């Protein structure tokens, strides 16, 4: 690093005393590289925890009628194993890798919002701690990672395990959404000159698409969890069929999140493979456009297939038919990817490094998992095997044989960039073969166990011919897999001290992260190489034979946007999805008659209509305020801002009056499902108005402090956008709840 670069990094370092001041430096860091490493280390801890939980289950299942774990303990183990692996390991490890690599791969100095980045990370240990604290507070949740209602309702799950589960997942969900918003803003606004969207490395492209999946899918889970929490703590009955609720709605909400979630856990892994395979086959990826487009296709289709998780519920023939068809359809873009990777390998000068070995194993195992997945699209087969170990085998082939092997490939590939030292290839080979044999031994036999009828989620099994032996084999494989992970840990520890020095670009790779030193300096790059194609470092090394430039010689595409605006718009997208779920729940529960309080007798549509006009007027005033500020008239701006707050306050007052009258009539949130959905929907909207008022108040303070004199008014524009959004949501809510009373 040159002397000037060092000076720059010290100057811009957010930490007192420079970036490297010990433990405090790590806790208070906002540097994306350090946060990325923190993500990876934290997930490693949870990975070991989740793995131990899995091994405990395998010990219990090693022979028939075993009594190592009680039924309840087994239930807690498979719940914790699933929840831990999905929310505390796979999602954060992928986000962590993206966090470390995306800014480097796009030639940026850091993420778009470094402080938000730190927040997203710290929510992870927070959520993980809450989830595991349940073990001390009366028992972990034992209802599965899907928490099917009504089993997750108070009468059936009376310990506080499910409460910790809901809170923890809510926190983790917020963290993931925040990280995704940050990634979207980073990729859209922080690319180096010349790195147009069509020249993006595929890993970055897939993280980009994946971030949209996260911000659209997570709100479905969050809204369902909020309802479950309200059910458990306010005595309502969203998901209790005996009191008019609907347990199937929980499943719809959960899987509307749950199926996109499968691809949230797969797309970044596809991205890793799309980086590793070309580099070690020494050829550019075959069909870049097809790989990129199939990512978009997968993302879109993933929202239209969730009901295939619910074939056994009995949704009716038409539903089964359509969702069977879409589920088969989604195999097409996935197949396109597998073909593209295989075609890249075909005729390549393959270097079988450990990273490449894991990538090739990924290809085979993911294809097996994908093929067994297609069998679930056939409804009768699904009915037969959905409750068995066949399904367990399937999703472990996708998630372990697929995603985890890709993550291992990524770790071996990028470890030298992160630490400056190569992982030992000798230990790596041991690690790979143990993982390969262990994984396939553990899970391949489970296909047969499932087809023979062994039920999943059950703590033991009867002594039927062959079952004991196959389970024994599976357990042996699981322990071998566990040992493989220990080898990886050992490799990391040894290589950190004694590993071969990597240099900038040990693999002769082509993407930007290899253009800087290993590990990269605080500012990432002193100079970003010119980018005209998808392989800037190839062009740099071969000026006589560069790749043909993609998209002409344009240095910029039409995607240079302001980061605060991108951040706010992404945030509003995820908020819209959240409100959409609440509104759908309202419509669903109120579409048929029920006993008890009804909107006709309780609500005053005329008066609420007037308060609605106040809220709409506030949209106008906040727009005018922005215009005034742009014209430099600070005083008028503050008056209009005050007027906006006043109008917002009047609206909240109106809501308060409405609530007061309803309470006065003896109606509470748990009176019936109308009251429940009414209070939930309007309550959340009111909360958003309140948050908007606080934001406006902050703007007022900033304006008073003269913050906008420089003409940097992005904050005002973003908060204005939020305020318009809150008003627009109310318009929808008003039409859904009140409009029919006026007509």
């Amino acid at each position, binding site marked *: 690093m040159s002397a000037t670069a060092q000076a720059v990094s010290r100057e811009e370092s957010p930490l007192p005393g420079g970036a490297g001041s010990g433990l405090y430096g790590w806790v208070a860091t906002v540097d994306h590289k350090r946060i990325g490493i923190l993500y990876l280390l934290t997930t490693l801890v949870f990975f070991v925890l989740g793995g131990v939980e899995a091994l405990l289950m395998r010990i219990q299942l090693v022979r028939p009628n075993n009594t190592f774990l009680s039924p309840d303990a087994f239930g807690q183990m498979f719940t914790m194993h699933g929840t831990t692996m999905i929310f505390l390991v796979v999602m954060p490890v992928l986000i962590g890798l993206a966090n470390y690599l995306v800014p480097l791969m796009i030639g940026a100095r850091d993420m778009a919002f470094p402080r938000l980045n730190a927040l997203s990370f710290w929510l992870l240990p927070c959520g993980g701690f809450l989830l595991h604290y349940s073990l001390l507070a009366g028992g972990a949740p034992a209802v599965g990672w899907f928490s099917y209602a009504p089993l997750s309702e108070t009468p059936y799950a009376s310990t506080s395990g499910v409460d910790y589960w809901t809170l923890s997942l809510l926190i983790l969900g917020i963290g993931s959404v925040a990280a995704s918003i940050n990634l979207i803003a980073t990729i859209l606004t922080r690319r180096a000159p010349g790195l*147009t*969207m*069509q020249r993006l490395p595929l890993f970055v492209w897939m993280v980009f698409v994946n971030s949209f999946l996260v911000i659209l899918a997570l709100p479905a889970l969050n809204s369902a969890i909020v309802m479950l929490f309200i059910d458990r703590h306010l005595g309502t009955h969203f998901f209790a069929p005996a009191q008019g609720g609907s347990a199937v709605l929980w499943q719809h909400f959960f899987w509307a999140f749950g199926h996109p979630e499968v691809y949230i856990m797969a797309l970044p892994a596809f991205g890793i493979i799309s980086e590793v395979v070309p580099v070690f086959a*020494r*050829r*550019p990826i075959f069909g*870049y*456009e097809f790989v*990129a*487009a199939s990512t*978009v*296709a997968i993302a*879109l*289709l993933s*929202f*239209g297939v969730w009901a295939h998780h619910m074939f056994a519920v009995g949704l*009716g*023939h*038409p*539903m089964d*038919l*359509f*969702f069977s*068809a*879409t589920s088969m*359809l989604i195999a097409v873009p996935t197949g396109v990817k597998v073909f593209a990777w295989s075609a890249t390998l075909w*005729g390549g*000068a393959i*270097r079988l490094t450990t990273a490449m070995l894991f990538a090739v194993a990924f290809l085979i195992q993911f294809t097996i998992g994908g093929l067994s997945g297609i069998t679930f699209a056939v409804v009768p087969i699904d009915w037969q095997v959905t409750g068995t170990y066949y399904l367990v085998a399937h999703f472990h082939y996708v998630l372990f044989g697929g995603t985890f092997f890709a993550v291992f490939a990524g770790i071996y590939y990028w470890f030298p960039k992160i630490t400056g030292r190569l992982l030992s290839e000798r230990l790596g080979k041991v690690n790979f073969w143990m993982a390969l044999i262990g994984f396939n031994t553990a899970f391949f036999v489970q296909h047969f166990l499932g087809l023979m009828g062994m039920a999943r989620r059950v703590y033991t099994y009867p002594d039927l011919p062959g079952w004991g032996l196959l389970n024994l084999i599976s357990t042996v494989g699981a322990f071998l897999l566990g040992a493989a992970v220990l080898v990886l840990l050992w490799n990391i520890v040894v290589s950190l001290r004694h590993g071969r020095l990597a240099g900038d670009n040990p693999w*002769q790779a082509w993407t930007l992260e290899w253009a800087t030193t290993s590990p990269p300096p605080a500012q990432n790059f002193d100079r970003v190489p010119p980018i005209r*194609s*998808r*392989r800037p470092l*190839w062009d740099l*090394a*071969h000026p006589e*034979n560069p*790749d*043909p*430039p*993609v*998209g*002409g010689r344009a240095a910029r595409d*039409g*995607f240079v946007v302001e980061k605060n605006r991108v951040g706010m718009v992404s945030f509003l997208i995820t908020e819209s999805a959240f409100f*959409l779920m609440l509104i*759908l729940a309202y*419509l*669903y529960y109120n*579409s*048929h008659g029920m006993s008890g309080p009804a909107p006709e007798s309780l609500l005053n549509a005329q008066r609420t209509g007037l308060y609605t006009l106040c809220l709409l007027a506030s949209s106008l005033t906040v727009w005018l305020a922005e215009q005034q500020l742009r014209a430099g008239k600070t005083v008028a701006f503050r008056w209009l801002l005050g007027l906006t707050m006043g109008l917002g306050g009047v609206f909240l007052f109106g809501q308060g009056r409405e609530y007061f009258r309803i309470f006065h009539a003896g109606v509470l949130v748990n009176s019936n499902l109308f009251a429940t959905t009414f209070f939930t929907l309007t309550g959340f909207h009111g909360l958003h108005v309140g948050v908007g008022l606080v934001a406006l108040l902050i703007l007022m303070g900033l304006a008073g402090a003269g913050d906008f004199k420089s003409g940097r008014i992005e904050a005002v524009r973003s908060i204005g956008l939020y305020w318009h959004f809150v008003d627009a949501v109310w318009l929808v809510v008003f039409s859904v709840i009140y409009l029919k009373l006026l007509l």
Partner: protein
Amino acid sequence: MTTAHFLTTAWQWNPRVIAASITTLVLYGIWQRGRFSGRAGWLLAGVLLFYLTLASPIDTLADGYLFSAHMLQHLLLLLLVPALMLLGLPATPVAGSQSVSQRPGAKGRPRRALAGWWLGMGGMWLWHAPALCDAAVANVWVHRLQYVSLLGMGFAFWRPIVGPRRGQRLPPLAGIIYLFSACLGCTVLGIIITFAPVEICSIYRHPVDRLGILPLLQNQWGLTPAYDQQLGGLLMWVPACLVYFTGILALFARWHREADPPAPVRDSPLTTAPGEKTHAW
């Protein structure tokens, strides 16, 4: 009545539909002065689909019998027919190689696109308000108005995506957002219709059996009214979304084609690492 008998006899010789189809083809022929490019195939497909929608057994079923057939008509008229016809119009190239933002008409484009989006979504949501849905089946003039407005709104919706003049079109990525949000709107409506316990169009709940085909539909095809409405909702939810989805993929392809390198990327042999053998290509 058997299925085969029904499918052969339920065609309608509606003179208006025939006249509209033929007029369209003739006008297109005159406009093109008899020289047809490959695009004419799209137009022909559009006209054929238009004819099938309004004169085949689909129309007979939609006329008071099946909500799902009525929905199918909707989707064809709003989503497929206009898109195919617009694709059939010859492209008018824009002179010069101005950048996207300098092309004529670029300024009003977002506003027009927004209007098109609202018309497309409006067409979908509006005609499924229970009152309007019933009125369209009961009154023949409302019925005709419905068809014409669906077609019109369909053209307005698709123009920013597949309009013949490049100046009218949205840039590909904006188009993707346009279609994705439309897909969401249509999904939500489809979900509501699929799960609504009340009938959207009460007329289909108790069909008047003018043709004596009700036993065929309900017993042989298994299309009871509840099943029928679920099917209608699912048609809007899944296949309609697949139309938008196809549009999105097409736009994606267009985006990459516009920026394509002049020649395919070569297989680039090897940066050679020390001690590694070079590979000849």
